[in-house]
């Protein structure tokens, strides 16, 4: 479990001070895929670097499985870092090493404790070779073992980086804007790989991103960061259905907010969070009660026969009709909220 307690990070440069993180509390349970989302400059990159102490918090605690990283000795910190893999937006591969040598790199750095020996020893050549083979197989790049990074595409480079990050069998994997430099298709395939790693290897994943789609497609939990603080956090299904904070609304349903603001009159916001199946709710209104409502905004999608997303409809001015609409929606188990 990763816990951040009252983490504050202040950069001081040229006499001025910049607060990058302010009183951040987060708990990331084992097995989660935890999304941290925010606009650029919100502090999310600093936040993820505080988890493995690449950035040392000015105040607060960083607990990894109960151990406070801000208090441990240097040697122990390096050990703990080996149990936390990390991948980056720009992949950060060693350009002068082949793919397999890149994946081998963390193994060269690390020592392992063997049950038979009291002291820690280096991995043997054979162990490294075998592990590298497994990892390249896992990320689907076994045929590129001898290639150099400059010969690979962005998606392939990120796969190498993932293999490298997993070499020492870490319990956690931090992803800092890992898909931001990739095209949509490649992003999907990398996200699929991460999801697979989470499910099959049980690696807890922390995903830093500014893209909603990333959180939507793989995360179980999400925290929204705004101006150095956690604005909102919770299960993705909850936060995405009912974003509370202004920033979360802005990020999750920007067009919806815009359409609410641009038209007058009473409106209803409908939330589809997968609990009702694919019934034509709005056409039902027209067919049953002869009430035609204006759809001001709709962004819904169908996943496994369930509807997810948001819709905004204009409420009829006639109060009776408006009541009918609400009753009909309630009968259909649609969650709705009146908005002005």
């Amino acid at each position, binding site marked *: 479990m990763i816990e951040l307690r009252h983490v504050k990070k202040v950069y001081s440069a040229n006499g001025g001070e910049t607060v990058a993180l302010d009183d951040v509390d987060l708990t990331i349970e084992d097995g989660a895929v935890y999304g941290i989302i925010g606009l650029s400059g919100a502090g999310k990159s600093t936040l993820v670097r505080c988890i493995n102490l690449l950035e040392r918090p000015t105040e607060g605690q960083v607990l990894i499985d109960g151990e406070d990283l801000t208090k441990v000795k240097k040697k122990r910190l390096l050990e*703990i870092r080996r149990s936390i893999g990390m991948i980056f937006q*720009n992949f950060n591969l060693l350009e002068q090493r082949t793919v397999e040598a890149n994946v081998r790199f963390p193994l060269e750095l690390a020592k392992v404790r063997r049950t038979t020996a009291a002291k820690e020893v280096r991995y043997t050549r054979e162990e490294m070779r075998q592990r590298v083979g497994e990892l390249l197989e896992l990320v689907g790049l076994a045929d590129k073992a001898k290639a150099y990074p*400059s*010969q690979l595409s*962005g998606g392939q480079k990120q796969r190498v980086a993932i293999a490298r990050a997993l070499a020492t069998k870490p319990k956690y994997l931090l992803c800092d804007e890992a898909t931001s430099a990739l095209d949509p298709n490649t992003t999907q395939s990398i996200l699929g790989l991460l999801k697979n790693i989470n499910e099959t290897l049980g690696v807890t994943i922390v995903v830093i991103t500014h893209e909603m789609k990333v959180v939507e497609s793989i995360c179980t939990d999400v925290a929204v960061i705004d101006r150095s603080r956690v604005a909102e956090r919770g299960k993705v299904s909850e936060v995405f259905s009912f974003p509370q904070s202004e920033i979360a609304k802005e990020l999750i349903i920007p067009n919806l907010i815009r359409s609410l603001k641009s038209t007058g009159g009473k409106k209803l916001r409908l939330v589809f969070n997968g609990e009702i199946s694919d019934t034509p709710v709005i056409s039902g209104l027209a067919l049953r009660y002869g009430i035609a409502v204006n759809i001001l905004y709709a962004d819904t999608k169908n996943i496994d026969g369930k509807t997810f997303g948001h819709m905004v409809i204009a409420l009829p001015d006639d109060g009776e009709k408006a009541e009918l609409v609400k009753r009909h929606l309630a009968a259909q188990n649609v969650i709705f909220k009146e908005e002005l």
Partner: protein
Amino acid sequence: MSRLFSQLGFEGFALGVWETLYMTVVSAAVAYLIGLPLGILLCITDRDGLKPVVWLNKIVGAVVNILRSIPFIILIVALIPVSRAIVGTSIGNEAMIFMLIVAAAPYVARMVESSVKEVDRGVVEAARSMGATTFQIIRKVYLPEAKPSLIVGAVISTVTVIGYSAMAGTVAGGGLGAIAVTQARPSNAEDVIWLCVALIVIIVQIIQELGMWVAKRTDRRIRGSKKQRKAAKPHKNQDQNKEISV
């Protein structure tokens, strides 16, 4: 053909070439042994380096700058007593080698510093995230990743040393420079001067071309087809403006 030219003959010029190469190679090698760790030290103790030690960085930086700003011909004169104390003599090739080392080591240090600083910070950060120690980062990230650039720096330093070595005549050392300045000039043996110049140019050319060829061959970023080279380039630029949100 001047009298000096025939006097020197093949053997005279061959000795000149040999002495120039000997002084250059020995002093460049020793200067590199001193300059490499100094350059790494300058890089990692920098304010935003791996292990910032600002006072040490300032002191080493100042010494390096002072030594680099003294014109070599003046440095030779200044170093005469120092050379006598350390090498035991202030004349001849050995004294010259000592002076060349003093002049070249700070130069190498700056070259190494700039090569190492070129290594992508993101890659260093990745190594840190894997629990690499500072020493491991130097040995497994900085040096291998900067290798092509380090080789280019070494070539440039060596060529500079060849130029300096021509002043060996001032301390009664040998080599092509000494032949041209102390023997050929007083007797107006222009053919000797021009042959010495030509030989130095050839030596420089060979070292330069050889060094660049090795540097290019070891660089894995630009190997492969033209297409791959193109594909690799924009990515390099991206690395430079790595965004860290604050």
